[in-house]
């Protein structure tokens, strides 16, 4: 909870910045815990119902924890045309999870994002902070294996 308070302080408990606070909370805990929301309500006086509305409205937030490595598959137009749906299929197949889910070992979660702004490299994905361009279906098992071994360079 101390962490949550630090985050709230960073934004000067300004109610205009609750979305920013929650983005930091999401980054910290990989989800938005209920206790954190209560703390934000207490400090900023923004009603809990509005915070829930925000959490469910914006795609960045999740109420259940996301995986250690968040996989984002770009499903923007340029990537779509260059085969993103096939890449997404291969992730759901290899990980046996759907978009929005996390693997049972807590290692990976899978999201589709609307464009990573690297459309020249389409199809593009990110795993954690790393961005990969020109991804092929055949690359997916190799990439996942690398992260499973904890070698994510």
């Amino acid at each position, binding site marked *: 909870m101390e962490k949550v308070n630090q985050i709230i302080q960073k934004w000067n408990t300004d109610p*205009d910045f609750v979305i920013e606070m929650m983005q930091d909370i999401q980054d910290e805990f990989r989800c938005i815990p209920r206790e954190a929301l209560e703390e934000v309500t207490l400090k900023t006086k923004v009603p809990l119902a509005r915070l829930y509305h925000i959490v469910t409205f914006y795609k*960045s937030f999740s109420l259940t924890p996301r995986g250690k490595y968040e996989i984002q598959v770009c499903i923007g137009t*340029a990537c779509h045309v260059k085969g993103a749906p096939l890449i997404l299929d291969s992730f759901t197949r290899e990980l046996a999870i759907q978009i929005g889910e996390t693997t049972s070992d807590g290692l990976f979660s899978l999201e589709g994002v609307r464009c990573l*702004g*690297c*459309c020249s490299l389409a199809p593009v994905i990110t795993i954690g902070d790393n961005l990969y361009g020109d991804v092929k*279906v055949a690359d997916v098992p190799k990439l996942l294996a690398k992260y499973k071994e904890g070698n994510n360079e």
Partner: protein
Amino acid sequence: MNRIQSGDLNNIREKRVHEIKKFKAALMVCAGTGCVSAGSFKLKDLLEKELKERNLDNEYMVVPTGCNGFCAQGPIMVIQPDGIFYQKVKPEDIPEIINKLIEGKYVDKLLYKDIETGNYIPKMENIKFFGKQQLIALRNKGIINPENIEDAIARGAYNSLAKALEMNQQDIIDEVKRSGIRGRGGGGFPTGVKWEIAFKTSQEKDVIPYIICNADEGDPGAFMDRSIVEADPHTVIEGMLIGAKAIGASEGFVYIRKEYPLALERLEIAISQAEEMGLLGKNILGSDFDFDIKTHRGAGAFVCGEETALISSIQGKAGEPRQKPPVPAISGLRGKPTIINNVETWANIPVILDKGAGWFADIGSGDVSDSPWNGSSGTKVFSLVGNIEHTGLVEIPMGITLHEIIYDIGGGIPNGRKFKAVQTGGPSGGCLPASHLDLSVDFDSLTKAGSMMGSGGMIVMDDKTCMVDVAKYFISFLKDESCGKCTPCREGLIALYQILDRITKGEGKNGDIELMEEISQTMSLASLCALGQTAANPVLSTIKYFRDEYEAHIKDKKCPAGVCKELISYSVNDNCTGCTICSKKCPVNAISGKVKEKHIIDPELCIKCNVCYEVCKFDAIEVR
């Protein structure tokens, strides 16, 4: 750093130019998002190390820059002042690059090779992709270190601000109006007119207006704004300062997508450097003008790019659009007049003040001397992506044709395939067929043809793209992104999606096309915001230009482009050499065959994952 006065800008520029001149050459390493993912930071560090070890660091300098717009060939390195262009540079190339540089020669294998002649082209300006462009918004791309304000000042940054500070407010607005510039974020509303509304309203009501920069860039397949902010954040800040001075604002906001962490970081560095120098904050450049900029990160909602939704999001609420009027220029953030402009619009403002409205108005198409609505002045940045030889960012004068962009600049369609369509205008734009390639690229021509200028995404599609699938893609995108506030948009998109989904699965019925047209009409008439009003464009334009493809899906249950999974099958043709790679890679073991013999795919087992097609080197996999 000291807070500076207007007169100091010149000194800083001269000092920096002098410093740069001491070096024999500058190695500009692209540090835009694309090149960073290809390893450009490491490259920069190694370059610096090598130069130091060889005692050359006083002769050659290494400068990290923003995106050069040629990301697919990254990491990019440009050696100035000669403009030598290297692509796909690897750490092991560094010693040779330096050796050749000292000898005044080039490393041939890193040069760009002309696709027609096969000749190496050493200089950036001689590469067709770059040579045909005209840079205004992107004038500093690849030339400055975006994290060094003095580099920006050396290229003239903040001069136009100094000019604006001497001008009267109405005169600034008139200058922008006369330039004819129209918003680059999608709507194409004349910027000067918007400013005037906000200025007049705040004077009448005696309130302080706000300034917002829209850097949400929701349009998938577009990265103009990302590149501008990454390459030259100061032009955006300067544009906002000029706007603020013009309408009398003292606070501004930049709303930027959280998917752009590098752009945000550069912007924040630029803001704090500008603050330190007294280019932001109180008494800017020694005048009585005060202005502050804060940044807000978007949290992943497309509709937040819409101005009223964005304003709601800045105030810490869910980003739902509201009824217009009143437009934000009359009642926006906290009920005050607010001008909200796109990143690229802001990036043009300093140049308009610097070179004059007349200069700007002469670029582009149409005659804007009576009204900005009569034409499209200036340039537009497009992100040219999809099935095209040279993907990247291009800034071109308005009014050139699609053909010039796609073939002369973009180099045409790769892999010997045929052009099928070009999509502009983002998710609610349209797809134009080959018969429209001679269309002039400006606000009004594109709208008339059933597409839109939009914010600048230009996605080229070859004959392996299924237009029904593309329509379904956009509708699915918009269905997920509709805020759900009004019924026609929410329900209309669900209905359209269901019909398209059926068609792509071979379950289309006679009358489906007509039904979709009817739903589209209702949505465009009855939706609250532009998302719903224009959402049916991808469906309508694909029906208009590619009706036979819909009919092939509905009547013949075929997907001619070989995309819709339920309607296609994979097989092996006689090109097969029996190399066995496909059978090894197939995740479900659907491929069998002996070494050096033709393989076969079991259609019962095949999950159509496309791995075999990808890995086959002999074009032996057929998708039909």
